[in-house]
């Protein structure tokens, strides 16, 4: 569904990505793991059009999307939940969710997806008219994911959904990511520090180090890989 070939990104004179190649099959959950600054976020940002790549290709549904502006990529059904969540703090929870459906005109479908968001994250219904800026970190993350689901994506890219969130909420959020993946058939590309948890819910994983893919394998194999265990799983 998503094919990234030799994608490279530079910030000024610093090369952040040295040619990343990866595939995300339809309806799968794929994880990128790696240390801070390894280039995981940059990879997602380059795919979603937030940063310009210096070369390489990104194919989505077989079509080249590299170089397109971010809003056109969203319109194709590839949605990115950025690191730090970026919820619209001065808008209410409901306005945020409706903002996610910005490109959609089908009122009934929007209503239905809104209900689905509340089904997945009941907490959001309770906070409906609260300003997003006043939510806790975990609630904001739920809102960010919900907001992305509102755009009716076929592929969702999640950047560090566990960042700064209490463990109990993290588990819940991961559960719901799996639910969204299974119930809605949404493909997920996940970037996560908590490699244990991430590999547990995914089928395939890539390990990034200083802007390169140094290892790729099924999630199971990665979890058993002693190198990965030592560096990222803390065994």
């Amino acid at each position, binding site marked *: 569904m998503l094919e990234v070939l030799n994608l490279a990104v530079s910030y000024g*004179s610093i090369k952040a990505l040295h040619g990343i190649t990866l595939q995300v099959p339809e309806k799968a959950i794929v994880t990128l793991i790696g240390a801070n600054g390894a280039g995981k976020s940059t990879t997602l940002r380059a795919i979603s059009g937030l940063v310009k790549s210096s070369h390489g290709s990104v194919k989505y549904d077989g079509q080249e999307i590299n170089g397109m502006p971010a809003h056109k990529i969203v319109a194709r059904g590839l949605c990115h939940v950025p690191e730090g969540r970026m919820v619209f703090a001065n808008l209410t929870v409901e306005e945020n969710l409706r903002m996610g459906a910005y490109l959609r005109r089908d009122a009934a479908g929007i209503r239905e997806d809104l209900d689905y968001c509340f089904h997945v994250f009941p907490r959001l219904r309770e906070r409906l008219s609260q300003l997003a800026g006043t939510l806790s970190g975990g609630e904001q993350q739920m809102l960010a994911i919900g907001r992305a689901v509102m755009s009716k994506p076929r592929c969702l890219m999640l950047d560090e959904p566990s960042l700064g969130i209490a463990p109990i909420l993290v588990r819940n959020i991961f*559960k719901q990511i799996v639910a969204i993946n299974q119930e809605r058939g949404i493909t997920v590309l996940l970037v996560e520090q908590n490699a244990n948890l991430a590999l547990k819910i995914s089928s395939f994983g890539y390990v990034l180090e200083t802007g390169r893919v140094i290892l790729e394998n099924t999630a199971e194999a990665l979890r058993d890989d002693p190198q990965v265990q030592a560096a990222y799983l803390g065994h």
Partner: protein
Amino acid sequence: MSQPLLKLDQVTIQFGGLTAVSKLDLAIGDREMVGLIGPNGAGKTTAFNLITGVYQPTAGRIEFAGLPIAGLKAHELTKLGVARTFQNIRLFGSLSVLDNVRAATQLHRSHGVINALWRGRAFRESEKEVRSFVMDLLGIFKLDGCADEEAKSLPYGDQRRLEIVRALATKPKLLLLDEPAAGMNPTEKEALMHLIRFIQEKFQISILLVEHDMKVVMGICERIAVLEYGVKISEGTPAEIQSDPRVIKAYLGTEDDEENVEVVHA
């Protein structure tokens, strides 16, 4: 430990309704190397910013060498002997490597505007001293070869090192390192650990290392405090930390943590 160099006493900070750091106690003794770890977003950087005067604590006391330092401006803090590096490198990008360090010698230099304009003998002597002090320092860290290059043109690893050198040029008693291993591969991390150990021995200073990477912290710190969700959940030697079930649960994740998540395989 006698009188600690840095002491945090029940320090709390809230942003809006959110408590980012709650009742944090932390002490760093003379020439001690202490690590502060925790998952991303646990409040490490906030704690760091509290110590360096970027944020004011909502409650609690922060003392350095017996003096309360909450509310001091960054440059006043530096004058007392607290130096820092930044999580996202903040060098003076357009200045040369030499000048980056030279700018940090302001505190220990005897001349000002008038001398700079008159350029008398004393000024020239002092400029020579500054220069040789800086070059010596750069030499220790093998950066003297690129003294005239623009700081932003250096490779990433050298920029990290230069930032540490720049902080050392303020002649600190306490050096605060904010995620120095971020973006490094295992080999670079190894080198960084050697470097930090070397600095501590050579300059005989205290170091507080705020770091995400467990291995780096475990490898070099004598004592480690673990933050989770703004609260210190554990403190002790690396061995104690590694076997603390609370740390394992919060940080490393346990097996039953994962049991709760449905496993899917394609």
